[in-house]
């Protein structure tokens, strides 16, 4: 192949200019088109790039917030990644990646990366100045010490972090905060909280079957899940089930790519999934087709549930609520109850409603009463944390002696936290709702949040009510953002610190869907001046102690590899059947499961030890004891606005890459042709959307994949494009989530707006 231009790399790495100037320079020189050509030289088809061997092969793992958490094999030559593949050892990843995965190393070598610590003179001004790591840390450390002096605590220091990188060592960010003192944490999750609580009430935990056992299902309903876009590797198992004779039903307000693969597709009224499930339950009850052994031997409260169904629910009522004809509800209910095993995949879409938790409980009940819980090829599949038993050394850090903090309630939670032992302490961190970041910054006082640390998160692209968020940021005295790209949050930062990509650091990954564990090795040296979250914590600790001895307990000596090694324990090794983490260099390993079925032993973790159709705990927490129907949110504007995931990004990651923009160059709002005709909107024309929180202009794409009363935009962040769906979305809470994740979920799909030609 063509030789790598080492000089070009050296020049690029040494170039001490700001991004803006750097890009200007490239435009002038005409080099932008091929940048960074030295690293990513195009290869001709006969050049013999492909497979002559002689590569260094590294193990990597996708740490993004995705079901698939793919195992990656990285081929490196002369210190530069040449190409990557899905690891063939994992029967889940099976040698393939997704469109995002295959673009991974373009992230590392992107010309748009943040290369150095930078300071912005005036948030949003774009007036960036390069500083040294030492200067950046000095500014940050001085501010932290100033806050501590002013408030006599560090509650004025807030951390907002979520799913930008689930690599285990990245919990060093939380660890860094703890090692400084008691701080303010934005806790909870925008992702799946209502359903987590729902499954915990019903089953005692969130635990799902191995997705590879889909092949054994005789009937499958994918309910509010779109794996063809969000879990591409699961599709092959679903296809195999279909090829073995299983029927696939997809329920979704959008005719998704997954729906196109179904045998039967239902488009119910959005947010009426609970009514639909209850209607099916009633029909199965009437026909006596429920599993009598399961409901008597392994469950409590079925009689009360049956009584509720007979009293309040009919198939006709479900039809009227959902818009799905009664005969279809009855037919699928009978088919589902008859097929053994039958399974439902509950997606994270349908729980993003004010009645989301109640709807998940209704679907759980449908699976349970048909005896499909605990069965290979069955189950109410949602997610699991079965394989997350790491030490979380990086997370669990001691506060410096004499630290003062929040008095009263317990410390923060999060679905991946394993308990920090803060409960017994006199003080704790101050927990505020991550789904109401703007509101929490504005309303938190005594002391106010003065400084915000953002890592693994892009709030200006993914949080809610941006108008309020902009207002909230004005209250902050300092904003530090740790990121890889100049995204919409970095625009609002005072200091930005460049962080490594997965190829440049050590960590390890497990999934919340499948049961594989993968090592993530450092395949290339960190590009430019980027550092891992662990190294940033170490650097800050050194600076804090230099300025004020004893003010930070984070070890300044450990690097990401050492932290990674410390995360393993005997439990993990036994679960996965390995002797050392070094075994993972040979490839990913799968947990040794007694059965591919969750709850195969019927030992539920509920208070009764049984499946709970009726949950007293749920009632204690202010909800209904039974999985009763809960009404949807009332519309506040003419049309429903849905903002689900795209296949080209994971939240605000990947779409900004030039490689991705080639396949998906611009965003659209998707409008049904009937609505478009009524409003005089043509395909491709510019429209104006407005909701109670904001407005935006965007091109329309006409399609009957969406209903006539629905508008759809995919979330994400496009480089150099002001597109942002969170302009239109408010921060209304879902019903459940507070119990297990510390804050309720957010009703992302209970949103409304108007549309008109621009």
């Amino acid at each position, binding site marked *: 192949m063509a030789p790598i231009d080492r000089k070009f790399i050296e020049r690029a790495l040494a170039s001490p200019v700001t991004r803006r100037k750097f890009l200007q320079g490239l435009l002038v020189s005409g080099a932008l088109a091929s940048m960074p050509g030295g690293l990513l*030289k*195009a290869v*001709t088809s006969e050049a013999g790039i492909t*497979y002559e061997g002689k590569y260094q092969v590294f193990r990597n793992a996708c740490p993004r917030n995705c079901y698939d958490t793919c195992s990656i094999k990285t081929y490196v030559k002369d210190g530069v990644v040449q190409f990557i593949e899905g690891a063939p050892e994992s029967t889940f990843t099976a040698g393939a990646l997704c469109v995002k995965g295959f673009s991974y*190393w373009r992230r590392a070598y992107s010309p748009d990366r943040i290369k150095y610590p930078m300071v912005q003179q005036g948030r949003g001004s774009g007036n960036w100045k390069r500083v040294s790591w030492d200067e950046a840390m000095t500014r940050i450390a001085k501010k932290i010490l100033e806050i501590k002096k002013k408030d006599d605590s560090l509650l004025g220091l807030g951390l907002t972090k979520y799913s930008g990188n689930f690599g285990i060592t990245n919990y060093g960010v939380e660890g860094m905060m703890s090692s400084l003192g008691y701080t303010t944490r934005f806790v909870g999750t925008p992702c799946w909280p209502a359903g987590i609580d729902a499954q915990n009430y019903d089953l005692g935990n969130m635990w799902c079957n191995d997705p590879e056992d889909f092949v054994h299902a005789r009937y499958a309903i994918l309910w509010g899940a779109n794996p063809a876009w969000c879990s591409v590797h699961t599709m092959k198992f679903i*296809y195999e089930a279909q090829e073995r004779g299983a029927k696939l039903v997809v329920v979704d307000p959008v005719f998704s790519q997954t729906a*196109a693969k179904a045998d039967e597709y239902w488009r119910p009224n959005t947010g009426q999934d609970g009514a639909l499930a209850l209607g099916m339950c009633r029909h199965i009850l009437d026909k006596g087709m429920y599993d009598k052994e399961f409901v008597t031997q392994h469950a409590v409260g079925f009689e009360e549930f049956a009584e509720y169904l007979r009293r309040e629910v009919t198939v006709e009522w479900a039809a009227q609520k959902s818009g799905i004809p009664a005969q279809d509800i009855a037919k699928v209910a009978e088919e589902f109850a008859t097929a053994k095993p039958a399974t439902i995949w509950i997606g994270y879409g349908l729980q993003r409603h004010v009645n989301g938790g109640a709807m998940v409980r209704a679907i759980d009940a449908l699976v349970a009463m048909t005896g499909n819980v605990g069965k290979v090829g069955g189950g109410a599949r949602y997610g699991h944390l079965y394989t997350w038993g790491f030490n979380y050394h990086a997370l669990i850090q001691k506060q410096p002696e004499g630290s003062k903090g929040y008095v009263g309630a317990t410390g923060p939670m999060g679905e991946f936290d394993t308990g920090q032992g803060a409960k017994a302490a006199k003080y704790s961190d101050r927990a505020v709702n991550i789904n109401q970041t703007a509101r929490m910054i504005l309303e938190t006082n005594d002391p106010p949040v003065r400084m915000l640390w953002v890592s693994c998160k892009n709030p200006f692209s993914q949080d809610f009510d941006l108008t309020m968020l902009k207002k909230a940021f004005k209250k902050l005295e300092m904003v530090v953002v740790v990121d890889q790209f100049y995204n919409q949050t970095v625009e609002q930062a005072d200091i930005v610190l460049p962080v490594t990509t997965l190829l440049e650091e050590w960590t390890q990954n497990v999934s919340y869907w499948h049961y594989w564990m993968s090592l993530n090795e450092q395949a290339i040296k960190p590009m430019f001046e980027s550092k891992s979250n662990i190294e940033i914590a170490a650097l800050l600790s050194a600076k804090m102690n230099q300025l004020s001895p004893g003010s930070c307990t984070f070890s300044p000596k450990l690097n990401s590899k050492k932290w990674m090694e410390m995360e393993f324990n005997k439990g993990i090794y036994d679960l996965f059947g390995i002797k050392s983490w070094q075994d993972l260099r040979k490839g990913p390993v799968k947990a040794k499961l007694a059965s591919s079925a969750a709850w195969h032993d019927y030992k539920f973790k509920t208070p009764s030890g049984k499946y709970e159709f009726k949950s007293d705990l749920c009632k204690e927490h202010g909800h209904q004891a039974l999985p009763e129907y809960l009404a949807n949110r009332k519309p506040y504007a003419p049309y429903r606005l849905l903002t689900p995931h795209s296949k080209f990004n994971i939240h605000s990651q990947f779409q900004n890459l030039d490689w991705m923009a080639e396949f998906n160059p611009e965003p659209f709002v998707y409008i049904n042709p009937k609505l478009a005709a009524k409003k005089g909107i043509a395909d491709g024309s510019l429209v104006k959307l407005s909701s109670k929180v904001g407005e935006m202009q965007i091109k329309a794409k006409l*399609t009957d994949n969406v209903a006539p009363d629905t508008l759809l935009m995919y979330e994400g962040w496009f480089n150099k494009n002001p597109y942002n769906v969170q302009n239109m979305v408010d921060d209304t809470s879902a019903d459940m989530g507070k119990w297990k994740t510390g804050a309720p979920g957010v009703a992302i799909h209970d949103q409304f707006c108007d549309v008109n030609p621009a």
Partner: protein
Amino acid sequence: MSKKQAGFYIDAQRCIGCYSCAMACKNQYHQEPGVHWRYVYPLKEEIYPHRERAWMSLACNHCEHPTCLEVCPVEAYYKREKDGVVVHEQEKCIGCQNCIRSCPYGAPRFNPARHQAEKCSMCYQRLDAGLKPACVQGCPTYALQFIEDMASFDQSGKVQYLAGFPRFPELNPSVRFRPPREPREVRR
């Protein structure tokens, strides 16, 4: 022994239009911006009634009688004896674009940086190493498959010309498709 003709099988029922194949190709060959050797084409709504829900993943079809090879004035194309892979030797290419104009499937693309044509090589180096083409290995749903020999490929339920795929029997493109199905739909 007669020579073999390798090809691609595109199972449009399994294809989810995820672009993994196209990106896997880019990952392997680092194509210049704007140049792709494999592309994912949505079927028109007249063919499949839902916009952007059924797809054809296409690269070079490695035809039995390739027109690119016929029209190239400098003989930059040759067909491999052992498997019928149509190889474009970029070093010989003078950038006249005859091949680009003549291919009815749009397989050769113009590389503006090199002022030459380029196209899918079916990853013949990988084939020679006993591996699958990068796009085939990169397909997460097994919708894109490698056909080792068209002669022994099971043709039942498969078509050579999917609706929307141009019909050029004289070229005899080495691709086969499985058409996409539609679900029964219950819409409010």
